[in-house]
């Protein structure tokens, strides 16, 4: 049976980049019956029009809500359309679409429920600032300590989500601001099978990052650590009360 595939691309002010991203995805996915859905997170430039012109479907958020909520819109749309497999990638061109078929294979075959595209396992060198490398290591370590899951690139947003995992992504407790390692921990504790595979990453064409500056990364570390502790705590309480883990 053919599985329905949807590629969701959250984008905020990515005019000039998003068109190429959509065209690259279409080329990489030519062998698969997949739709491309760009979630325009209230952009003020021509992101939506450019994505549409390149052949993607577009959902324009009525206001800027942030990366996490844009993703959640995509997951919700996917679920309401009866999609089986969701490919999630960024709209700034960082994630190489040529890696998608390789990442999708284990999910399509049913070997696992979620695949993470990893820049750390990739043979291609991806330059990352020292602070971000330290952050990545810290959250990978935390994920291992709390969920006994060894993921090298726990903050990667390049993911392929299978049917079993997708239902968890639209639950009410899905974090709105930065869904990263906390989601992986949540899924792991719920028994979702997670696999990390090498993927090709490119330096963003615009050079922008949502974690740039001084305050944003500091808030990210605080928010993610607290969120992970809460996920673990809820799971522990639920297990203690005899609830389903």
């Amino acid at each position, binding site marked *: 049976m053919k599985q329905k595939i949807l590629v969701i691309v959250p984008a905020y002010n990515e005019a000039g980049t998003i068109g190429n991203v959509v065209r690259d995805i279409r080329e990489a996915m030519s062998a698969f019956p997949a739709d491309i859905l760009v979630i325009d997170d209230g952009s003020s430039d021509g992101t939506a029009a450019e994505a549409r012109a390149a052949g993607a*479907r577009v959902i324009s958020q009525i206001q800027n809500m942030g990366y996490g*909520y844009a993703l*959640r*819109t995509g997951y919700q749309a996917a679920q309401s359309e009866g999609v089986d497999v969701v490919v999630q990638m960024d709209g700034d061109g960082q994630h190489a679409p040529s890696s998608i078929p390789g990442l999708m294979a284990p999910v399509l075959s049913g070997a696992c429920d979620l695949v993470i595209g990893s820049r750390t396992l990739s043979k291609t060198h991806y330059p990352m600032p020292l602070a971000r490398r330290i952050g990545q290591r810290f959250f990978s370590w935390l994920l291992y300590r709390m969920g006994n899951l060894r993921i090298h690139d726990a903050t990667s947003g390049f993911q392929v989500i299978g049917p079993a995992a997708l239902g968890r992504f639209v639950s009410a407790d899905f974090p709105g601001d930065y869904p990263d390692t906390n989601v992986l921990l949540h899924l792991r504790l719920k028994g979702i099978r997670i696999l990390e595979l090498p993927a090709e990453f490119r330096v963003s064409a615009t050079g922008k990052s949502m974690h740039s500056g001084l305050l944003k990364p500091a808030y990210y570390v605080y928010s993610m650590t607290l969120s992970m502790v809460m996920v673990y705590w809820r799971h522990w309480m639920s297990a203690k009360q005899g609830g389903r883990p």
Partner: protein
Amino acid sequence: MNQMEIVANLPPLHQKLAVTVLGLVAAYWVVRQVRHNRFHESHALPWFLGIGAGLLIVWCNPLLVTITSLMGVGVPASALLLLSLFFLFLVCAWLTSMVSGQQRTIAKLVIEISILKSRVEDMAARETGESDDR
């Protein structure tokens, strides 16, 4: 400070009257906010309860003495100040939880509306395409 000293330091009548006038002015101000739809009835409730509790404590000497002694502060006036600060803290905490709840609701609505809006736009585009074909 022992019970006797606390009793000796109870606020005199004119101070109690001043607090009562302040409380009544505050209550009137809250009523006006509700009347002009600036406060929701449910949001006005903690303010009324706070003002009521404040007046009760000010006028009920045994209660004020007990609270002062329990809190371990020197004089009843300081106990009243600490209680006021504690009340403001409670209201802030309550409002924070309400804002968080509203934020979740708004996010949910934005997601739903955005999806529905895109469906309507798709349908309109399809209809326009069909009528052009005709």
